[in-house]
């Protein structure tokens, strides 16, 4: 301990406060490498970009192969196109089978179809 009694100088409060401040500065611990590493590890954990952590927190649905219509027009257009195609096939089949050609008999329906339109239900077709 250095003693001020050796100096017999005028007491200066500012000097005394400065001296104590220097003592406190010198006597205080400084961050060691371990503490700095822990603080920086905390920073690294906090700064993780959301996209980098998504792999562990979010599983994307498994991709399925798109249909031809979806590939060409997108899924909504593909769905509409598929419905339109189904409708067209239905209309086409309805035009082929004219109800007026079906006699109102007790014969089995299959035979009546064969009689009405051989092109559709004949042996070659089936």
């Amino acid at each position: 301990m250095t003693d001020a009694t050796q100096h017999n100088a005028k007491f200066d409060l500012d000097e005394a406060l400065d001296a104590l401040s220097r003592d406190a500065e010198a006597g205080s611990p400084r961050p060691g490498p371990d503490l700095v590493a822990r603080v920086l590890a905390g920073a690294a954990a906090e700064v993780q970009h959301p996209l980098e952590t998504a792999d562990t927190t979010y599983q994307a649905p498994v991709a399925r192969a798109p249909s031809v219509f979806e590939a060409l027009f997108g899924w909504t257009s593909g769905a509409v196109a598929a419905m339109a195609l189904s409708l067209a096939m239905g209309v086409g089949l309805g035009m082929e089978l004219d109800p007026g050609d079906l006699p109102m008999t007790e014969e089995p329906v299959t035979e009546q179809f064969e009689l009405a339109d051989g092109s559709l239900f004949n042996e070659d077709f089936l």
Partner: protein
Amino acid sequence: MAVTPDGDGAERDAELLARFAAGDQSAARALTERLLPGALRQAWRMLGDQVEAEDVAQDAMLKLWKQASTWRAGEAKASTWLYRVVHNLCIDRMRRRRPQVPVEDAPEPVDPDPSVLERMAQSQTSAVVAKAIGTLPERQRQALMLRHFEGWSNPDIGAELGCSVEAVESLLARARRQLAAIMSEEREALGYD
């Protein structure tokens, strides 16, 4: 020396916080170099225990990292914000040290602990000054410590203590008068004229 909440330093801290929030790890290192020593020193002065002080400093810095993305530059200075966080964390630990006393009956923990300051004094004069600081009323002691030991400006001290700059000047003047009175009694024993 402590990282003082001066204008340039505050702007630099705010800029570094913004860079850190954007994912720049080098900004975290720069902020650690600037702010961690002061946080550790403050915690050490309040707690007088290095392990506890390191835990508090680490916790405070972690809170700063968490705050970075929502930090509003200009509303608060990182250094003063960190000082407040360290202060509160230390107060929590000091209260937990005395579990046998109900919280409402326990005296408010002192910031800083005068005994810690006395332990750090390297001369007889410094030891007497440290002891004298311990006798000051709480707000006078806080103002004096922030001014002389942390290097804060009077407006920053006022913001921290919730009072005007004039009130800070008054606190500091009264603290100095009381210290001068105490030291005049000890002057002869210390060998001063």
